[in-house]
Every structure is written in C-alpha cells, then in structure tokens.
C-alpha cells in the first residue's frame, strides 16, 4: 500500500500514462528489493510480458529456420542453423495465385496507398478541424455531429454504396479509389482530433490575428500550423498504422494486382495449394508487421496518444 504513488497527478486523458513527475527522494519509504510483495509483483508482470512476447519470438525463430528443422523441432526452440532464405523468398518469390513475385508487390502497393491517403486525409481533416474550431458557420456543428455518429456505423453498411459511387466515377478497383475511401473513413477521428486541439489553443491568438487583418488561410498557415506539429505527428502515426493494417477496404476496393500488403499476406499464407512453407509464411508475416512496429517503437508515447484518439473510432 505504501508503495502506491504518492504524487497527485491530476490528469485528463492518456498523457497520464506518463510516469509520475519528481521520481526521487520524495517517494515512499524504500523496501527491501526481494520482499515477497516485489517477487509477486515483478513475477506476475514478467509472466504476462512473456505471454505478449512469445508470438513475436516464435515468428522470428520460425522465419530463420529451414523447413526440415521446423518439421523436426518445436516452435520455441531457437534455430540450429540460421537461414535468411525464407525472408528472401517471402519478399521476392512467394506466390499468390499465378503471381510469384513475392510480398514486394504488396509492399509497394501499400506504400502507394498509405502515403497519399495519409497526406490527403490529414490535409482535409486539419483544415476542417480548424474551420470547426474557429470559423463556425450555421450547421457546422450539425454536420460534425453526423460525422462523429457515423464513425460508429459498421463499415459493412456503407461499403456497397461506395462501390457503386466509385464504379460510376470509373475508379472502382484502382488505388485512387482506395485512397478516397481511406480519406473518407479517416475523417471522423482526425477531424475530432484537430478540432479539439484547435479549440484548446488560446482564442486571443486567433482574435489578434483577425484584428490584424489576417484571413482564413493566412491564420491557418502562419499561426495554427506552426503551433500544432505534435498533433500532426499523432495524426500521422494514427493514419500510417491504421491504413497499413487495413484489410477490409483493401480486399473490397482493389483488384489482385493492386492488393495491399495485408491482403496479399493473407492470400500467401492461407492459400490452399502447394506445400505449406511455415518459415516463409512467418517471414512474410513479420515483413507485413514491420512498418507499424517501427512506427510504434520510434514514436513511443505519441503512439499511445494516437491510438487513444483512434480507438474512439472503434
């Protein structure tokens, strides 16, 4: 009990996950390191951590083994002979249907989908959030409410009408179509994120700029943008991981030669033809998870903010 934090943290929101400030001599009375309480505490945490790490470990070791070793050994044993062949094969040779050029194609498709989707959705949502925060007009709150409520509607309900619209325009099955879809469905959470951020900025700033004669775009570009870099980073993290990990839109709105990485990965691993090459499958799985994992490890605490915002989208 005495060890429970002694610091008042008045927190609103996810930033609270940050460790308490002033960790130092002002803390609770030190206890012996090997008290039974500590053993219980760290023991439980370590066991839990092992459960979370186990699949990652299994993925890595499996991808470094040859198939004969996989058939003999167990999945937890480290590889006796490390081979990178499965990785090469997963990247450049694995087959989906008739194509045998590996996951590289899906990777580049995903890049071509993710980059424009992230840029467009953030551009739209940031300007929109700014308009909603500082330039409200009649009906703006109503549309915003519809947008937020709409975020809870299952995608399955809206998919087919979008298919029809895209087909009518003539971009169904193209990457452009998918980029539009991602921009649409990224809008609720991103707009909410930016709107709340711009609302939290001091209003005097905006008023002063208005008095000085600055207009809509001038205030946005010269005052708001430079002040809101962190929120842009959060939005980017959110969108990059979300769009990269998407499967449903990829499978509905693209064709086999433009499939994003997740769809291609699923087709490679779950194909019924041929001998299952588990090492290649695991290498392919890691390759697909690598981009969001890198984003996660590099971005650290900002990621937590991003997903906390993104989780609201459900």
């Amino acid at each position, binding site marked *: 009990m005495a*060890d*429970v*934090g002694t610091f*008042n943290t*008045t*927190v609103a*929101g*996810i*930033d*609270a*996950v940050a460790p*308490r400030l002033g960790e130092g001599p002002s803390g609770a009375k030190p206890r012996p390191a090997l008290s039974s309480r500590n053993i219980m505490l760290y023991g439980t*945490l370590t066991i839990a951590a092992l459960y*979370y790490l*186990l*699949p*990652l470990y299994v993925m890595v070791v*499996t991808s470094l083994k040859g198939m004969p070793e*996989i*058939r003999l050994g*167990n*999945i937890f044993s480290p590889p006796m002979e490390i081979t990178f062949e499965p990785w090469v094969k997963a990247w450049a040779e694995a087959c989906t249907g008739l194509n045998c050029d590996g996951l590289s194609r899906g990777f580049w498709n995903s890049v071509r989908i993710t980059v424009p989707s992230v840029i467009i959705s953030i551009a*739209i949502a940031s300007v*929109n959030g*700014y*308009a909603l925060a500082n330039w*409200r*007009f009649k009906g*703006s709150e109503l549309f*915003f409410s519809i947008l937020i409520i*709409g975020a*809870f509607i*299952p*995608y*399955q*309900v809206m998919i*087919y009408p*979008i298919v029809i619209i895209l087909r009518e325009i003539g971009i169904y099955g193209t990457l452009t179509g998918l980029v539009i879809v991602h*921009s649409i469905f990224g*809008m609720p959470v991103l707009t909410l994120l930016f709107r709340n951020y711009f609302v939290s900025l001091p209003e005097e700033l905006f008023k002063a700029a208005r008095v000085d004669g600055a207009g*809509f775009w001038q205030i946005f570009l010269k005052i708001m943008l430079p002040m809101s870099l962190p929120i842009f980073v959060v939005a980017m993290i959110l969108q990059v*991981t979300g769009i*990269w*990990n*998407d*499967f*449903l839109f990829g499978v509905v709105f693209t064709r086999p030669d433009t499939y994003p990485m*997740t769809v291609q*990965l699923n087709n490679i*691993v*779950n194909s019924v033809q041929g001998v299952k090459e588990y090492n290649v499958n695991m290498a392919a799985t890691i390759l697909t*998870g690598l981009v969001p994992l890198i984003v*996660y*490890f590099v971005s650290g605490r900002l*990621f937590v903010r991003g*997903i*906390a915002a993104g*989780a*609201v989208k*459900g």
Partner: protein
Amino acid sequence: MTGQAQAGRPIKLLRNLNAKIASIPMILTALVIFVGGTFWTVFYSFTNSKLLPRLSFVGIDQYERLWAAPRWVTAIENLALYGVLSLIFSLVIGFMLAALMDQKIRFENTFRTIFLYPFALSFIVTGLVWQWVLNPDFGIQSVVRSMGWTSFTFNPLYTPEIVIYGILIAALWQGTGLVMCLMLAGLRGIDEDIWKAARVDGIPMWKTYLFIVIPMMRPVFITTIVIIASGIVKVYDLVVAQTSGGPGISSEVPAKYVYDYMFQAQNLGQGFAASTMMLVTVAIIIVPWAYLEFGGGRKRG
C-alpha cells in the same frame, strides 16, 4: 467584397466562405456516405437484389431467410459468446495489468512497450501468428506432447466447439494492451488522498480497488467498454486470417457473412439485410451509452 463580411451586406451563403469550402469534404462524407449510404443499404435490404441492386421489394423476406440460415445463427452466437468473453477478459486483464503497473514499479516503460506492441500489428498478422502458435502439429500442443505429456490436447483451431476460444486468445493478445493503457490513465487520475484515507482507515488494498477506485473510474470504464464493444461487432480480419470461418462454419462472424454474401455469393439482398442487422447491434450498444453520456443535460466529464 465577399471576403469581408462586415463591408456591406453580402449574400448570406458567401459569409465565411473559406470555412464552408474547407468543410465540403466533411459535409459530403456526412451526408452522402454516412447518412445516404446507410439509408441506401437499409432501403435495399428489403429488395431481392442478387448480382446487382434492383428495386423489387420483398418485404422482410431477406430477414426471414437470414435468421433461418444456420450460418447466420452460428455467426450471431459466435459474436455473442466472443463479445461477452472478450469484454470481460479484456477489462479484467487490462485492469489488473494497469493496477500492477501503478505500483510505482521500475521498468514501467519497458513493460508498457511490451504489453502494447501487439496493438500496432494488424489483425491479419495477429491471426496468422496465432494460427501458427496454435498449430496442432507444430505448436503448443506438439511441444507439450514432446515433453512427455502425450495425451495433451489443445487444438482449438480445428475443433468446432472451441474454435472461438482460439480466436479469443489472439484477440486478447492484440487488444488488452490498449485497455491497460486506458485503465492506467484512469488510475493515475484518482486523487492520492483517496488512497491515503483508505490506508488510514485500514481498508485492505483489494477492497480499496473494488469498492472505491473502480466506482470512481466509471467514466473510464464506460469509454473503454464502448471502444471494446464497437470493435467486437466489427471483428472480421482476425477470423479471416486465423480460421477463414472454419472448421466448417463454426467460427463465422456477422461481418464475414456480409462480405461473403455481397462480394462472393452475389446475393446482395442477404448482404444488405445482414449489414443492417449489424447496424442494429451497434445501435443497441451505442444509443444507451450516448444517452447516459450526453443525455439529461449532463456534460461529458
């Protein structure tokens, strides 16, 4: 002239024009996609559209057929079982991990990084990894057997009765880190004086958590439940990757039913009816929450 609203009396629509232009994507999305698309799908769920949507109304025929289909009933049963279990387990595990993390431990950042990293991975990756770990010939079952316990059986992905638990294990692995983070934020928001008071009164720690801290964290719990619940209804990729709905139809879920009927079986009417039922399910979850949260003039905390 139009740019300056104060000068003269410009046309009303042109006031604040830039903001309106900036909001066009939002307005279009809200009206055309969210409202229009939803009504369109609900409307066409009363037709017998097959390959293409067409306007021949059959009343609630599609819904009768839907609820008579064993595959849909299985999907709903799976969703209910999976939903209840995943809600309970993610809350319990997430809260317990958060409570442990809140004991001023060392390496807190390391532990949090480990608990949360699966959340960065897609459901496809999650499903495929656990498909491999639970593989009966090479995975956990075979490892335990090779250690000498030869009759050990743990093969959820190929056993229709328990396949949904196999999916649950993967889903919990992926999602509990997020719940932990939300709960930890909630715990850190509890005033330290509460803990001091409980300690002075000699209340045991578990009682403080159960009867004081958790009731105080009600808003956090509600938010978390809404997040988990709306994720549950959408569960799709995980099942596709891990079991493809098998063995047989034993791990089907509604979202997969919708996709299969819309884009593979070319039975649009069934797909529309099934997706409308998904919408109803979400409404059942969201409307009471929205009422509690925003209704009654109470502002969100």
